[in-house]
């Protein structure tokens, strides 16, 4: 698509999204940029507000070709794709005034300041509510806006630890482990997005009443504790990291992970060798003569019996399946297991996910043009396929202040001369 000279190519217009017509101001760091990107791809006009020197998260790695710089952070690319960017110096009164004028024309504002430090930047809820009573202000922090931990220093691993998830992650031998791609940040972003949407809907049915949405990263992470919280509540059993097994309230399950000739497969309870599918899986192994001792009336009867496997039985079952998997390719194993009704899945790496037949058939990936680099790159695609209001990827992440002229003119009616004056006063 040819663009007239001087018109920024991104974000692409998205008038058909379910949130088209709403405006979101993004003053967030890692805790909130993915949240606002989701809203943008649903049609909202998302404006990233950066300090003059650029947002600090432009310094988050990894970097394109390993070269650090304000425009090469892959973190920035992923989290801010399809947003507009303005610069606004909130440490100056004129900057705060500009922000408040933008807030008056917006529906949602997302901020991630350390609790208690918002007022200095004009981002506290009372001030913002006075500016725009219909505004939904989403505050995302490590632990919430109030309480004994509100001002503690946080990071992904700290919230993963205090949020209980790490206790279930890992094994006895090595101790707790964090998922390498930051999940406390991810969970906080998603909780913020749900909270923002609930508040937006609430506003629609309550004569435009705005509100404050207070999100805790610790609490967000705690929601990923599976049934460990209820297991403690109901049984008084304090679950830990099960390694390659699964937590079960009554017993140790057989392994669910097995090495293949080309990687790993994930299959619940020894691939189904224990439980209602036991005979189906034994038949499969027996067809190639690899069922070992399990292809006997005694073992068959034993394995369909829901009585937990004991420490002597478990390794026998696991060893049979491990030897079977080790000789085969994971895709073949999964296809055959699925054909027989067992819910196996391959363990995939990013490269293998990118090569997935399923995702290709779904037309999942989107190609995003980075015209300054002269290349395009493949990004993850639609999480939802809507029949009436399609999801849309809206192009690359913005350069620092790329949309200053456009946004300030369009929303605040600030002309070129006024904008120059603001620039000289360092507000923009």
């Amino acid at each position, binding site marked *: 698509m040819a663009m007239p000279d001087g018109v920024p190519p991104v974000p692409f217009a998205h008038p058909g999204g379910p949130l088209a017509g709403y405006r979101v101001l993004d003053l967030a760091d890692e805790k909130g940029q993915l949240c606002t990107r989701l809203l943008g791809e649903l049609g909202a006009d998302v404006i990233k507000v950066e300090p003059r020197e650029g947002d600090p998260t432009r310094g988050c790695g990894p970097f394109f070709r390993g070269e650090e710089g304000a425009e090469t952070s892959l973190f920035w690319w992923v989290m801010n794709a399809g947003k507009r960017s303005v610069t606004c110096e909130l440490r100056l009164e004129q900057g705060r005034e500009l922000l408040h004028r933008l807030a008056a024309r917006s529906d949602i504002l997302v901020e991630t300041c350390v609790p208690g430090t918002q007022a200095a930047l004009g981002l506290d809820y009372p001030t913002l509510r006075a500016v725009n009573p219909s505004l939904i202000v989403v505050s995302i922090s490590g632990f919430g806006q109030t309480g004994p931990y509100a001002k503690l220093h946080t990071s992904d691993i700290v919230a993963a630890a205090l949020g209980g998830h790490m206790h279930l992650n890992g094994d006895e031998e090595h101790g707790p482990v964090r998922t390498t791609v930051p999940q406390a940040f991810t969970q906080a972003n998603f909780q913020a997005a749900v909270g923002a949407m609930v508040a937006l809907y609430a506003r629609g049915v309550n004569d435009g009443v705005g509100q404050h949405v207070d999100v805790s990263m610790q609490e967000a992470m705690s929601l990923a504790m599976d049934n460990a919280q209820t297991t403690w509540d109901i049984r008084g059993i304090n679950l830990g990291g099960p390694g390659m097994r699964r937590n079960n309230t009554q017993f140790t399950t057989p392994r669910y992970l097995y090495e293949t000739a080309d990687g790993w497969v994930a299959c619940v309870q020894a691939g189904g060798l224990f439980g209602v599918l036991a005979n189906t899986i034994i038949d499969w192994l027996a067809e190639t003569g690899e069922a070992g001792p399990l292809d006997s009336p005694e073992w068959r009867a034993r394995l369909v019996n829901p009585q937990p496997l004991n420490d002597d039985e478990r390794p026998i079952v696991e060893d049979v399946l491990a030897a079977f998997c080790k000789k085969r390719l994971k895709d073949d194993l999964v296809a055959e297991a699925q054909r027989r009704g067992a819910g196996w899945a391959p363990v995939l790496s*990013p490269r293998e996910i990118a090569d997935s037949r399923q995702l290709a058939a779904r037309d999942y990936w989107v190609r995003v043009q980075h015209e300054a680099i002269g290349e395009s790159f493949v990004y993850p695609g639609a999480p939802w396929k809507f029949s009436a209001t399609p999801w849309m990827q809206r192009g690359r992440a913005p350069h620092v202040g790329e949309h200053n002229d456009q946004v300030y003119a369009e929303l605040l009616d600030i002309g070129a001369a006024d904008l120059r004056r603001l620039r000289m006063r360092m507000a923009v």
Partner: protein
Amino acid sequence: MSAEQPKAPFAGLRVADFAWVGVGPTVSKYLADHGAEVIRIESSTYPESLRRVGPFVDNIPGVDRSGYYANFNSSKLGASINLKHPRGPELAKRIALACDVVTESFTPGTMARFGLDYASLSAERPDLVMISMPLYGQTGPWSHYSGFGHVLQGAAGFNHLTGWPDEPPIGTGTAYTDFLVPHIGAVGLIAALDYRRRTGVGQYIDFGQFEAAIHGLWTAMLDWTANGHEQTRMGNRDPEAAPHGCYRCRDGRYIVLACFTEKQWEGFRAALGRPDWCDLERMRRKWQRLNEQKEIDRHIQAWLDGYTYDPARPDVFADEGGESQGRRFTTDEVMMHFQDYGVPCGIVRSPEAMRSDPQMLHRQHYWMLEHPVMGLRSYDGPAFRLSATPTKLRKAAPCLGEDNEYVFKEIVGLGDEEFIELLADGAFE
């Protein structure tokens, strides 16, 4: 603005929830806990999997005793239909048509088999919003694949990215995607509902859990597609922080700490009492420290061995390390000690410890709800607090078919006699 109390966001919306296990019920829980009338539609002939999985009250299995099921189904009504009964599909359809929203998570094609697909329902109710959320979406070679969150986390990359380098891809120890993708599902569903509120237009959402989960991989996909670099599991390390790890204290509990910035590193040094090793030339810059993590980890562990103690066994104290100059810390104190110096630090909380975590208590995260069979039990609320229209978990999870009489008489409109006849005939089993 009205002076009266704002009403619950989804008050007046009715939801037919055919979904099961973790993801679907969590999506509709958001609607239920914010005012919608959500009807779980189940069957006793083929009970929802989570009703058959523990924890069970008193360790006695039973469809109305599972905490796993209960936690995802607060504030909902329970109805049961036997879809194999000659009138089952018709009854289910009548419930669906009385609703604004239909949610389901069956293998593609299942709803159509019972005449409950979007085309059939929307022909009679055009403003219906329906979301289908199986593992892999409605189309494609894997669309008929079955499974659970515990294996989907493998397909979606979370196993590959969890564990220690050169060790197996152990995964998160949970059915992780079950606690990741429902939030994204809910965002799309509420966006569609808001669109309907403003325009009257209903729609169908084809939501594939696999596709949503990939958005939780942070930069891993783009690092591959743009840089050809494949991220992998790094234990407790982080590519941008040193130290960054998890360490054992004297009482057997673990703490984590992270230094991303020079300021945090300075705080860390001060918190340790400025030991000499921190001044080594090779510790000066972050990129250098990233290369010295093994040594740094060893020093941290030695420091914790020397400075922490177990209040339950105060006489046991470290000889090794020998760094302590008198002050000793409990694990709780050591966390606050590093925090006081500006270092992000926390304790690895166990499920038990979560319940007495001072911040979780302050946030009143866990709701205690009375269930007729299970008694007073804890439920998770969301991680957000809404100032004007607060979340409200109105009741405990439903027993199977608990609200049949209300649902089939009031909503479907069956007469007393017809209801009793169908009941006797097994239509609600």
